[in-house]
């Protein structure tokens, strides 16, 4: 019988290929469930989950909440903006207060890298990392790989280029780990200022030219420029960025093959991709969102089955 090798999902770095396979198999079942007339199963009736978001989120938070509700878990959610964190409470205190209300699992997003890991060592609950600073965003990477598997049959042997703001992106790091673990080849592409200095030590090649990167790849994962994390100017202007690293229809059509376009959202239309590309048949952006719910159901279900 199969179960996850971990009690928390803190990052792709901490899990293995078998875990990913198990999550995908379980997600296949949940994808069938969420396409039923009644999209709900009672598995997690006796589990309570707290969603703690210290950073803004729409998609991830809704997706997690929906996944939990589809599994019949009890859910409490809070955003830091309305909480006592503003009054100076520490992270451990906040979470321990929530846990004394008998919560079994915590889904947390935090601006500091390592926050989820820190929490997992200091509180008694199963922790799911929903993004910690520029470190990891494991469920996003899982749903990205799952969408590639769905579209192209397999992740192994595929060529994936991650384009854009790699420096500030937790999606990029988790994706690199996940894709390499499954046997895909990964390149990154973006302005030199937004590529981390030691990225090649992860076994990732840097391709500064967007056209060459797209001609090489099977899948292009387009990242958003994270203006909110930028303390200085990393490129001259948004217009110049869009000209050099934005994908439009003309560019896609001039390639000698059809590639899959992905985007973790939210999209800045006209910057990293144009509307035409985002809404085209080559884009799997909305499939990613649907798969996100199935993947998060699988992760929560598998982690919950390990709670004593």
């Amino acid at each position, binding site marked *: *019988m*199969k*179960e996850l090798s971990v009690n928390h999902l803190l990052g792709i770095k901490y899990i293995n290929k078998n875990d990913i396979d198990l999550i995908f198999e*379980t997600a296949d*079942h949940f994808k*069938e*469930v969420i396409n*039923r*007339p*009644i*999209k*709900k*199963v*009672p*598995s*997690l009736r*006796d589990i309570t989950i707290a969603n703690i978001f210290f950073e803004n989120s729409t998609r991830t938070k809704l997706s997690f909440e929906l996944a939990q509700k589809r*599994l019949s878990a009890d859910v409490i959610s809070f955003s830091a903006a309305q909480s006592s964190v503003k009054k100076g409470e520490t992270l451990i205190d906040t979470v321990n207060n929530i846990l004394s209300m008998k919560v079994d699992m915590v889904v947390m997003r935090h601006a500091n890298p390592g926050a989820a890991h820190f929490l997992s060592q200091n509180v008694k609950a199963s922790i799911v990392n929903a993004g910690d600073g520029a470190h990891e965003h494991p469920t996003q990477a899982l749903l990205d790989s799952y969408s590639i598997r769905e579209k192209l049959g397999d992740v192994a042997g595929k060529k994936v280029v991650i384009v854009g703001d790699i420096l500030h992106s937790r999606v990029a790091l988790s994706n690199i780990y996940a894709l390499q673990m499954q046997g895909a080849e990964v390149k990154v592409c973006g302005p030199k200022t937004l590529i981390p200095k030691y990225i090649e030590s992860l076994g990732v090649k840097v391709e500064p030219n967007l056209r060459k990167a797209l001609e090489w790849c099977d899948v292009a994962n387009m990242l958003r420029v994270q203006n909110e994390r930028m303390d200085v100017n990393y490129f001259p202007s948004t217009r110049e960025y869009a000209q050099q690293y934005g994908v439009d229809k003309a560019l896609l059509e001039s390639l000698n093959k059809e590639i899959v376009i992905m985007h973790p959202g939210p999209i800045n239309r006209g910057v990293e991709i144009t509307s035409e590309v985002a809404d085209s048949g080559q884009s799997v952006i909305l499939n990613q969102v649907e798969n996100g719910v199935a993947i998060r159901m699988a992760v929560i*279900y598998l982690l*919950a*089955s390990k*709670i004593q």
Partner: protein
Amino acid sequence: MTQKVLLNSKEVNIILHRLACQLIEKHLDFKDTILIGIQPRGTFLANRLKELLEKEYQTPEIKLGYLDITFFRDDFRRTEKPLEANKTNINFIVENKKVIFIDDVLYTGRSIRAALTAIQSFGRPSEIELLVLIDRRFSRNLPIQPDYRGRQVDAINNEKVKVSWKENDGEDAVYLVTN
């Protein structure tokens, strides 16, 4: 471990024919009736019955689905081994249909309890019946009884009833296994 033959291939075959006839007696042309095999082991019996009904008893186009009950079980986090899901395959709505659950062994009744909840995701059937090949009577935890049964078996709790199917295990037979 010792194992005793409860039913051999010939006996299984006779029982399948009898069950098929009992179904026809009640459901005639199966116009509003749907067979649902309970995953994982009820699907073999369901496939067999469908094949028999269609080939030997000229009742064409019987609707058949598979229902997985893993996420509806009441022993999540209570068993030693993690539960493993199987595929649900129901491509129709069961609203106002007569549903027949088909499983190989009826033991505690808890799988059927879960199936009764699970089927609600596909609509509200007008009625639900239960067909089992082996009914382990006296071991029920819940007030659930079959409408069609192949054979009643008295087995104590440390005994296990094992049903083998030609297409999966190489032979049609039912064994009583004692550890």
